[in-house]
Structure formats: C-alpha cells, structure tokens
C-alpha cells in the first residue's frame, strides 16, 4: 500500500503540473498589505489595519481546510482505493500547512513597515499572527477531521439503529470548523487592546500561547485519534453529496437566482440553480462576508464624507473574495463537473451560469450599497472609478477556463 511519502510524491507531481499562481498572489497581497499599513502610519492606525487583514486572512486560510480533507475533487477516486487514513490525513495536513505558510508570508510582508518603524512594539502583533498561523495549520485540519468523524459515527449509529441515514448532519462538516475559527477570532479581538500596551479583556500573551498550543496540539491529537476515519469520511461525504445533489434536498436556490433563470438559456438556468444550492451549502461564509461588506458600505453611505480608505478596502477585498468565489464555482468539489461534461454542458453555459452567480452576489452585497457610498464619498469620482474597476474584475473572473475536477 502507499506510504505517506509515496502518496505525497504523487501529489507534488500533480501539483507541479497544475497551473497555479498562488505564491505570486501571496507576494502581491503581502506587498499590498505592506503598502496599506505604511499608508496607515500617517493616519495613526497601521496596526489596526494589519490586525484586520490578519483576522480576515485567518478566516480564509482556516476555512479552506475542508477542501483539503473531505471535499477534495478526487474524493470519489480515493474513497475506492485502499489508502490508509493517516496517509490521507497527512496529505490534507500538508495542503493546510502550505495555505498557512502563504498566510504567514502575507502577515510578515505586511508587518514590514511596522518592524521598520518600531520593531519592539510590533512583536506582540507578530506573536498573535504566529498563533493564528498555527491555528490555521493545525486546528483547521483537526476541526475538519473531528467534524468528519462525527458524521461517520453518526451514520454508523443510525445504521445500527436501523433508521435511514438520509438526514445525516452534514452541516457539522462546515459548521464545526467555522465555530472553531469564530472562537479564535473572538479571542484575538478580546486581546486586541493589550497588543499596544493598553488594557483589554484578555492579555495577549495568554491568547497567543493558548492559540498556538491548541493549533499544534489539536493536529497531533487529530492524527492520533481521528485520522483512521479518513477513508470512511471520504466515502460518507461522497455518499451524502450524491444523496443531496441527486435529490437537491439542500438549501433552496436563492430567490434572486430563481428570478434570473428566465433571462438565461435553460441549460445555464439549471446549472445556476445547482451551483446556487452547492454554494449555499459549501460556502456559507460567502453570505456572511457579503453581509459584512454590505453593512460597512451602508454605514459609509449613511455617514458620508469620511476617509476613502475604508471604502477602498471593503470594495477591493470584496472583489478579491468574489474572484475567489468564481474560482470555487469552477472547481466544484464534487463529481458534478464530470457529470456536467458528460451531459454536454459547454464552457459557454458554465461561464454564463457562473457569471450570473458572482454578479448576483456582487450587486446584492457590494455593487448597490457601494454605488450609494461612492456617490456620497468625499472623492466620488475616484470612488466610482474603483467600484467600476472592481466590478469589471468580478465580471471577468468567471470567464477563465474551467479547471478539471
């Protein structure tokens, strides 16, 4: 049977051939953060800017973990092969470590202006950043495998009781990692006041130590206790995907997506419907992040003439997130894309459905409130220009060729 080293050699071989600009993007984001933090030195809030991005980046890095463990595009194939649980766990952990190292690079790059200004005062921020990296690298995988174990054990219990397992609690697959990430974020917010020597609910050394310990410790515990369930997880999650996608008994398509359907070709409308359900279930964070952007832009619209930096940050980060969502649409982590190819769904139909989904998200959460906020900003022409460029970016994002699943 394959050892961890052999399996990862195959994975590295596949990764080396898969077109990816992840490291290039990482450097670009780190440079952008450094620039924004440097700009913040003149406005008196560079550390706040760094910390906001650190928390947002943590959420992204942490919540990518399920796609490295059970929502892998090759889950169906791997579930059928006799590959040991710890080998599958190590593979997911390696992918999470890669994500965490990219996240670390962004944090270090972004902190460069702070280090140059006052290295000593920056150390508490870097310590919290390191703790968040440890959480993303270790606790993300642990939360995923823990959630997967809960699902497999629940199914086993149901089967033993002779009841139908059709209503297995898949919500826990995304819900548990989300809950753990939320606790870490609350702790960081709770200690934020103490990072620059002020008073806070929690002292930062305690929070940093706790997060780092949980991050490293939970990964070790998960490998020891739960990795053995990985093959069952892949199989059960594949089963649940089939059950839920076959009957479409998942969250209903958003009303806006249903409204768009008559304006599209029947094939694109059907695809939009399926994608809408898939995204609602797989990426509930899309709605949460969208709602956050909506609230910020709404506040800026109601309270105009403030500094443009918050508007720019919200619109640009929302556009980057929309591009990421477009990529998720192209890489739906199930057997669905293969089935769609077999059914003759063309690239054009896919682009049309994906564009409709991304644009619905964009205009609902960002475009409309952003337009009002831009019109009422102290530099409306610049604000409208930035919003227009960001919108163009989100329109172009789904037009890239689909990645094979």
């Amino acid at each position, binding site marked *: *049977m*394959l050892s961890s080293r*052999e399996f990862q050699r*195959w994975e590295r*071989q*596949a990764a080396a*051939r*898969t077109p990816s600009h992840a490291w290039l993007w990482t450097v670009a984001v780190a440079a952008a953060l450094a620039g924004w933090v440097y700009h913040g030195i003149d406005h008196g809030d560079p550390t706040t800017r760094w910390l906001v991005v650190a928390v947002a980046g943590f959420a992204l890095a942490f919540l990518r973990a399920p796609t490295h463990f059970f929502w892998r595009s*090759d889950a*169906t*194939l791997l*579930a*059928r*092969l*006799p*590959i*040991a649980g710890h080998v599958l766990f190590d593979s997911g952990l390696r992918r999470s470590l890669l994500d965490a190292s990219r996240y670390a690079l962004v944090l270090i790059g972004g902190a460069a202006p702070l280090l140059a200004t006052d290295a000593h005062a920056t150390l508490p921020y870097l310590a919290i950043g390191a703790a968040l990296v440890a959480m993303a690298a270790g606790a993300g995988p642990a939360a995923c495998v823990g959630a997967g174990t809960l699902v497999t054990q629940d*199914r086993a219990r149901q*089967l033993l009781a*002779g009841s*139908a*397992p*059709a209503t297995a609690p898949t919500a826990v697959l995304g819900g548990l990692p989300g809950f753990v990430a939320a606790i870490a974020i609350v702790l960081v917010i709770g200690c934020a006041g103490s990072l620059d020597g002020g008073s806070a609910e929690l002292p930062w050394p305690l929070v940093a130590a706790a997060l780092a310990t949980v991050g490293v410790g939970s990964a070790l515990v998960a490998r020891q206790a739960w990795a053995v369930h990985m*093959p*069952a997880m892949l*199989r*059960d999650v*594949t*089963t649940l995907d*089939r*059950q*839920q996608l*076959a*009957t479409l*008994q998942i969250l209903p398509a958003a009303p806006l997506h249903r409204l768009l359907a008559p304006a599209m070709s029947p094939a694109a409308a059907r695809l939009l419907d399926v994608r809408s359900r898939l995204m609602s279930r797989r990426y509930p964070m899309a709605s949460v992040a969208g709602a956050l952007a909506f609230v910020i832009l709404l506040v800026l619209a109601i309270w105009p003439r403030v500094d443009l930096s918050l508007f720019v940050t919200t619109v640009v980060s929302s556009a980057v997130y929309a591009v990421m969502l477009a990529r998720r649409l192209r890489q739906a982590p199930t*057997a669905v894309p*293969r*089935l769609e*190819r*077999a059914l003759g769904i063309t690239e054009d139909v896919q682009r049309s459905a994906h564009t409709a989904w991304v644009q619905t998200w964009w205009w609902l959460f960002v475009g409309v409130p952003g337009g009002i906020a831009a019109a009422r900003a102290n530099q409306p022409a610049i604000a409208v220009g930035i919003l227009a460029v960001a919108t163009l970016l989100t329109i172009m994002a789904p037009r890239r060729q689909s990645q*094979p*699943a």
Partner: protein
Amino acid sequence: MIAQVNQLSVRYGRRNAVDDISFELRAGELVLLLGPNGAGKSTTLSAMSGAITPTAGTITIAGQPVVTDAAKAKVGFADQPPALYEFFTVEEHVGFVAQARGGDRAEATAVLTQLGLQAIAARPCRELSFGMRQRVGLAAALVANTSVILLDETLNGLDPHATRHALAALTAATARGAAVLMSTHLLGSAERRCDRVMLMNKGKLIEDLHGDALAALAQRGPTALEDLYVERIADEGPT
C-alpha cells in the same frame, strides 16, 4: 463466491435508488447488468466499489466487507465518466492506481499495451477524448490484477477496435478468475461473450439469467435479449 451482495438498499432522500437486492458474483463470470436510466445500476456498482455507503445491506469481496483495504485492493471500478487525475499522463494515472492497490507501477504499461493504449501513455488525461477516457478508466479498473471488475457503461463511446481490445482484456481477466459486472445499454458484442445477464428496474433486480436459461434465450435469435428487455421493462422514460 468472489463477491456477495446481500439485501442492498441505497436511498437518495425519499427515493429508493436500489431496493433490497441480493446476488453473488462467481470467479470467472462476465455479467451484464441491464436496465433503463435510473434503474439503480450505477448506484449498485458504486456501492459495490465502496464509494458510497449503503442505506442497508452488506457487500463482501472475497469474504471481506467492501470497506476494508483488503477488499478495496481487489476491486476495480470504472465509473461514467471515469475519475482521472487530469494533470497526470495516462501511464501515471494508471500507475498511481496500481501502486495504491499494492501493485507495481510498471503493471500500468502491461495493461495499457493490452488495451492498445501505449500510443497515448504519455499524454495528459486532460487532453483525452470521451472514448479515450473510457479506455483509461477501464485500464485503471484492470490494473493490479483486480478480482472484481465493475464497469459503469464503460463500453459506451468506444470504436469497434477499442471495443474488441476491451472485451479481449475482460475475457483475459475472467480467464484468470476475475468476475466482471458491467452495466451497458449496448447489446451485441458484450451480449455474445457474457455468462450471465441481470435486469434491473426501479431499484429492483427483476431477472437473473445464466446457464441453460441464458443459452435458451440466445437460441431464440440475435434480438432475444433486447426483446426480453422490452417485454419486462415498460417504456416509461427516465425514472
């Protein structure tokens, strides 16, 4: 018995995709699984491959539950369309599957030669046509001397030469003691070489013909199986 399916049920929501079916596969058998779209053929094959968990029932391969590594190493599965690593070459993909089953990566070359695929061995999977993908899926199902070979409409989309290569490889597999269970809508070549025919409809196994019964059916003429299919399964469209 090399594979045993006992009271298998798979439910998708409120719908029974497979409803309490039982059968066995014997070593050296080539079995056709026929039925209309939505009859439950693919779900049965997927459950037998260990890719999905049954709602009820048991599946054993050589006496081991299908979820065990020992059983998985013996089962080869080609789904529709086959799951391939798109950025691997054909030889790498089949080699990876061979190694995962405990075989030798070099076995990939032998299987690809057997299926007439040596010319595309160095091509990336993402560049393959539908028919080529089907053949690579078949190669991955056969590699590492699997003893239960499950094929989900794998012969569909193959040209006559490729079909001959595939059937020759399957005949060779049955000759070494493997059992082949193959769902298809294309009767003809496969029908002539099969040892047994099972008919599914609405999740139920409604016919299991082998031995004398199958020989008697074959004597009724070249369209006898198609006639039986039409007779036993009403034309209701997709279910």
